[in-house]
């Protein structure tokens, strides 16, 4: 275990799960959208719904959506900063069913019109897990540089992508494929041992069956 996780992280209080983790949730929505967020609907479940105000979970998520980091003191003023940067948001207490007690579903729209819907849980110590993207169940923990690939669910896509990765001299640490309920689309989560660059992402976009590809470096 990384000792800087034991003495750390540096964060704005009061709770690593309800505050630091909540900021990272907002950050991830922004990253996966690849754009500034203009509009967000935030559904809070369980402990998040019950204790959001006292823990600053609400301000933390909004802070994350406008790109603040968990150690940024401006989180306290994130509502004001959000209105300055043109983000409108709504919080809705909601029962998401059998999920971790610290879970939120965030629907975000970007300034350029893109949309994304994520279900995220804050699992302790400021760590988060992404459990759903646009209705597809996934599992992303942020431990490795990761590619999230949305593709048509046809044979051969896995091979095309993994070949491109191998050509970069990069090893796949772990790869999971998730199918949508209608079997028309799939999401691949590919954890790699090394980061990739923009040029590589462009190369992947040339694969015809790929609808969308997102790259995230490790979160911690």
């Amino acid at each position, binding site marked *: *275990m*990384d*000792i*800087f996780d*034991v*003495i*750390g*992280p*540096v*964060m*704005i*209080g*009061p*709770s*690593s799960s309800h*505050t*630091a983790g909540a900021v990272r949730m907002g950050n991830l929505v922004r990253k996966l959208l690849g754009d500034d967020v203009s509009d967000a609907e935030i559904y809070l479940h369980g*402990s998040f719904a*019950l*204790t959001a*105000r*006292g*823990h*600053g979970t609400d*301000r933390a998520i909004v802070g994350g959506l406008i790109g603040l980091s968990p*150690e940024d*003191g401006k*989180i*306290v003023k994130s509502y004001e900063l959000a209105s300055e940067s043109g983000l409108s948001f709504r919080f809705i207490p909601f029962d998401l069913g059998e999920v971790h007690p610290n879970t939120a579903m965030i629907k975000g729209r970007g300034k350029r019109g893109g949309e994304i819907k994520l279900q995220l849980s804050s699992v*302790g*110590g*400021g760590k988060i897990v992404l459990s759903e993207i646009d209705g597809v169940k996934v599992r992303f923990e942020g431990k490795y540089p990761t590619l999230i690939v949305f593709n048509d669910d046809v044979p051969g896509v896995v091979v095309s992508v993994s070949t491109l990765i191998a050509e970069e001299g990069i090893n796949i640490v772990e790869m999971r494929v998730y199918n949508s309920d209608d079997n028309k689309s799939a999401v691949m989560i590919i954890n790699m041992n090394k980061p990739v660059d923009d040029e590589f992402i462009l190369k992947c976009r040339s694969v015809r069956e790929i609808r969308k590809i997102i790259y995230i470096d490790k979160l911690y």
Partner: protein
Amino acid sequence: MKSIYDLVKQADERKTSISRIIIDQQISELSISESEAVEEMALRYRIMRESVIRGIKLNSKSVTGLSGGDAFLLDSYIKNEFSHGNGITVRIMRNAVAVSEVNASMGKIVAAPTAGSCGIIPGLLTVLEDEKRIEREKVVMSLFTAAGFGSVVAQRSTLSGAEGGCQAECGAAAAMAASAGCELLGGTPEQCSHAFSLSLINSLGLVCDPVGGYVEYPCVYRNAIGAVNAYSAMIMALSGIKSIISADDVIAAMKDVGEKMDTTLKETSLGGLAATPSACSICSSFLK
């Protein structure tokens, strides 16, 4: 490092400190230079220091009104009763409460090992630095010792209140602080492990029952007493007192107790202090 036993054995074999073993291991694991590792830890210590100063001045209540202003009260007490120095335990309490209150008021802190227990390690170490006039570099190095002990707890048990109760957060923090303080005041690696054990045995069974689910009451005061627990255990170990149960076994006991602890007492706010009539009336008045 898989056990405290290994940690002490390695330090003894190499005739060096526990902090040296941990830092060497980290620079090889994370592929960073020694100066980068030290700088990363020094940054954390600076933030701990800043949060102490901020917390002592912070004479206001948190968002919920459940905490705030108590480090200020302790500071006034020190000024009245200990104007000529001394009062080391009350200074430790003040600094621990200060950091904990900064956390409750959405200020910047270092989770050590968690946000809920963030006052204990800085509470003890900042006072030792001031009172014993220890060089800053040595204090920063002692944080590697605290982190090394903490990571063994994380591997063999847990550092989460939701899994192990408060013994896993404030209990672990106090034991980590005791071992760091012991090294700082010249204790041997073996004495550090006794300081750790003598501290943790006094937190076994401590439940996590925060009022309303907020990291405030009793957390702030558990940080104060946790820091004093660390100081006491450190002194006992430095005086030559030994724990007859090994540190790894004390960690195993903590795990056992945590597993047997009822879920209502593990950060759910369904039992203990959180379920008392006065807690319920405080929360209903806040939620209105």
